[in-house]
């Protein structure tokens, strides 16, 4: 490990050098001022974009002034252009009130949400590619940039991965603005702060950081920002890129940042003091810091009553353990510890395994790998075929494998229970970690039975305890133990008893609810409550 860290340090040094070079890199066009001749400006744009035909250039003549509109087709709302910009250029008898023509056009005539005067070419490219319309006017070495953003958006739909029964049915989309609006609509407080930046030297992807001032821990907010600023990469295709570039540790199968496509989940995390990172073009919003137990909390836990959601959550944790240990325990039981299985059951299993030519490990491996392939194929196949193929595949292969004597029926049961249990983890990133570790534990069980499994689990717990997410220990309220934060771990306390925000994640403002929130019937002799309230 020390060698590794040394290597990493070297890389970091290199990165610094790269950074320096990039700043000097003449890849980006030089920041030139806008020219007075609008024709020169237009030919420059044509040259820069290589005559791409989605760059629309429309020349205009207005009150003896000549000029041109430039916009990128598809990124703009063409109705806004025709209704507001072109309309204002059609009006020919204008009263400039003694104002300069350019100033007049900017302030009075072009009736758009926001107009900006820009002076240099970097701004021109920036605005143009974000969907603004640039207006060059003859004789002015500046241009008007009018906001005409309006591209095709996907409508807000039901979430496709994190479903809920009682919760809200909207989900994030690929558009940054829509996503921030979804959060704003849920937290109507000026303390919900939004900071934006652009990441990706080529792709220039918009990224927004949202947090609630006064609840979020300033240190963590700063850390998130610092880590985002450090990113120097050509493009960000999805929030998965950001996630991998800002996590504390890469050498782990466990996710150390949370991601969700549910606005209500992200809202509640913001209210716990976490920081949300929204990436344009991804319907998954990242929140940090993330704790281990968080991946077992589903949105529905908070929408149903506490006893039910506690039961469901414990079930989910049990399912995670089954998904992790299922085949490993089967292997250990059948190869090492037959005496621990009740006699009748041991005989039944032995009878079934009689004709199986493989040792338990190979048997389990065949079935597990088959299942994983089916699952992966089911994911990639065209939707119409996918489900049918996966069901038929599972049935046919399961049935046929048993009949052919490759595997025993018990193995099929074990594999299917494990697989189904694996789906009950609310967040895919955690479920897939269990899937991977399962194979390691199967190997250990083959070598040393339950002792191997125990050592594997011990190793895993050391690893989990050593992880940190933005400086917060990953196993937070369990190890290190914190009594105050046990309200939302294994037992989900009633909402009125969940008084405090998680420690360390939020700072300062820890209390969520007032005193005496416990509901109940009116007390006896309390009939004239209103008069009491007045006094």
């Amino acid at each position, binding site marked *: 490990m*020390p060698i590794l860290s040394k290597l990493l340090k070297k890389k970091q040094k290199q990165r610094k050098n790269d950074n320096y070079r990039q700043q000097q890199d003449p890849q980006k066009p030089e920041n030139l001022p806008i020219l007075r001749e609008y024709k020169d400006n237009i030919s420059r744009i044509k040259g820069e974009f290589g005559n791409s035909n989605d760059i629309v250039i429309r020349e205009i003549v207005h009150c003896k002034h000549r000029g041109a509109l430039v916009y990128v087709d598809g990124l703009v709302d063409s109705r806004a252009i025709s209704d507001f910009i072109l309309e204002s250029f059609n009006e020919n008898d204008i009263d400039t009130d003694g104002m300069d023509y350019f100033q007049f056009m900017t302030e009075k005539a072009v009736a758009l949400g926001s107009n900006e005067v820009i002076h240099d070419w970097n701004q021109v490219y920036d605005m143009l590619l974000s969907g603004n319309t640039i207006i060059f006017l003859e004789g002015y070495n500046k241009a008007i940039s009018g906001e005409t953003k309006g591209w095709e958006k996907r409508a807000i739909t039901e979430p496709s991965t994190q479903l809920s029964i009682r919760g809200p049915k909207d989900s994030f989309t690929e558009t940054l603005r829509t996503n921030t609006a979804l959060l704003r609509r849920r937290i109507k407080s000026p303390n919900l702060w939004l900071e934006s930046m652009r990441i990706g030297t080529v792709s220039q992807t918009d990224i927004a950081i949202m947090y609630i001032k006064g609840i979020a821990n300033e240190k963590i907010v700063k850390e998130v920002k610092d880590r985002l600023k450090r990113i120097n990469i050509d493009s960000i295709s999805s929030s998965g890129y950001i996630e991998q570039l800002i996590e504390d540790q890469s050498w782990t199968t466990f996710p150390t940042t949370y991601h969700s496509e549910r606005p209500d989940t992200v809202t509640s995390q913001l209210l716990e003091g976490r920081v949300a990172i929204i990436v344009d073009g991804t319907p998954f919003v990242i929140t940090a810091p993330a704790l281990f137990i968080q991946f077992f909390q589903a949105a529905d836990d908070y929408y149903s009553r506490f006893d039910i959601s506690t039961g469901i959550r414990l079930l989910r944790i049990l399912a995670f353990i089954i998904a992790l240990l299922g085949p490993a325990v089967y292997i250990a039981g059948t190869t090492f510890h037959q005496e621990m299985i009740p006699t009748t059951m041991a005989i039944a299993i032995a009878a079934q395994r009689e004709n199986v030519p493989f040792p338990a490990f190979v048997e389990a491996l065949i079935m597990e790998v088959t299942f994983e392939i089916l699952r992966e194929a089911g994911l990639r196949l065209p939707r119409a075929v996918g489900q049918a193929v996966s069901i038929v595949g599972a049935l046919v292969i399961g049935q046929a494998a048993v009949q052919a004597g490759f595997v025993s029926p018990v193995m099929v049961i074990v594999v299917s229970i494990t697989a189904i249990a694996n789906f009950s983890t609310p967040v895919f990133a955690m479920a897939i970690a269990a899937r991977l570790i399962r194979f390691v534990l199967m190997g250990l069980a083959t070598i040393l039975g339950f002792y191997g499994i125990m050592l594997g689990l011990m190793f895993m717990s050391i690893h989990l305890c050593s992880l940190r997410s933005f400086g917060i220990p990953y196993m937070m309220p369990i190890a290190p*133990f914190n009594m105050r934060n046990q309200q939302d771990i294994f037992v989900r306390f009633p909402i009125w008893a969940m008084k405090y925000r998680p420690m360390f994640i939020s700072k300062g403002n820890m209390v969520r609810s007032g005193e005496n929130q416990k509901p109940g019937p009116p007390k006896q002799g309390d009939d004239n409550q209103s008069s009491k309230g007045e006094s």
Partner: protein
Amino acid sequence: MEKAKIKASQMFILVVLFEMGSAILVGLGVQAKQDAWMAVLLGLMGGLLLFLIYYRLFKYYPDLPLTSYLQKITGKWIGGLLGLLYIIYFIYMATRVLRDFGELLTTTIYTSTPLIVINSLMILTIMYGIHKGFEVIARVGELYFGIVYFMAIAGIILISVSGLIHIEFLQPVFEYGWKPVVGTALKQTITFPFGEMVVFTMFLPFLNNHKKVKLACMGGMILAGINIAITAAINVATLGAELFTRSNFPLLTTIGKIQLANFIERLDVLFMLYLVVGGFFKISLYFYAAVAGTADLFKFKNHQMLSFPIGFIILFASVTIASNYAEHIKEGLDVIPVYLNWPLQIIIPCFLLVIAFLRNRKKKKTPSAS
């Protein structure tokens, strides 16, 4: 030295897990027959007194581990030699626990697996823990504390529901007089496991609140002592004094007797689960003390690089220290307490305290005189 900071509750849990560690597995105080539990409690009293000595020493040098204040108290050379002696002692004790642990598995469940395979996998896991540092070990302790307690309660309920407990096995009290009880306490239970608290002299500076040292450590010792005494009593009540004395691992025999509804039987897995957890913490703490001591004595900046060489020493020594289990146990019962535990856990700390007392009195006097 690593700059770790742990909470008092974490220290408490580490003390409990360390003390219970292997003491619950082997028949502690078997020489006292059915009064084993009393020998354990007597040992606990002695252990608490001993800890007060360590605590006084810690009070004199609150920021230093044992290996450092040895040099302050007795001078550079003698202190260094004594420090080295303690490091070797810690390594040796880690080795012994690892051997105990491996023997247990090879004699009970993995009868055809070589000892070195069992031990090497265990030491690899521990090396990983040591590599991650003391704070991580403390956190893992918190994670497993609940599980151990859950298992213990489940075990006690199952044993009593199975109707295995015969209180009359615990009687007559003092059948052979009080002499064997006191003798066992002096010879065995004071030093093992309670005197082993000497290893915590390496860790006390890690505690973030120095005022809570007494509470955390002595509380932990008391809880662990009571647990061990209860276990001893249950073992005797289940097996009878005779079988208890003869059995290599009384707890395993006791658990093996559980039989409920023809379904819950052969719960050796529970036992093994505890075995791995308890063994892990006991070996880890000895191991870490050795690593921290070496780093401190020889001025290593990075203790992590020491975990591999010392780990391999422990691994190979665990296979070679005794040619068979009988020899190993004989050493453990007759040689270790007299020649290692008593001098290193009791006599040297007592001398240290006396010298430290004299030195610090002088120091206190000089400023007042001037």
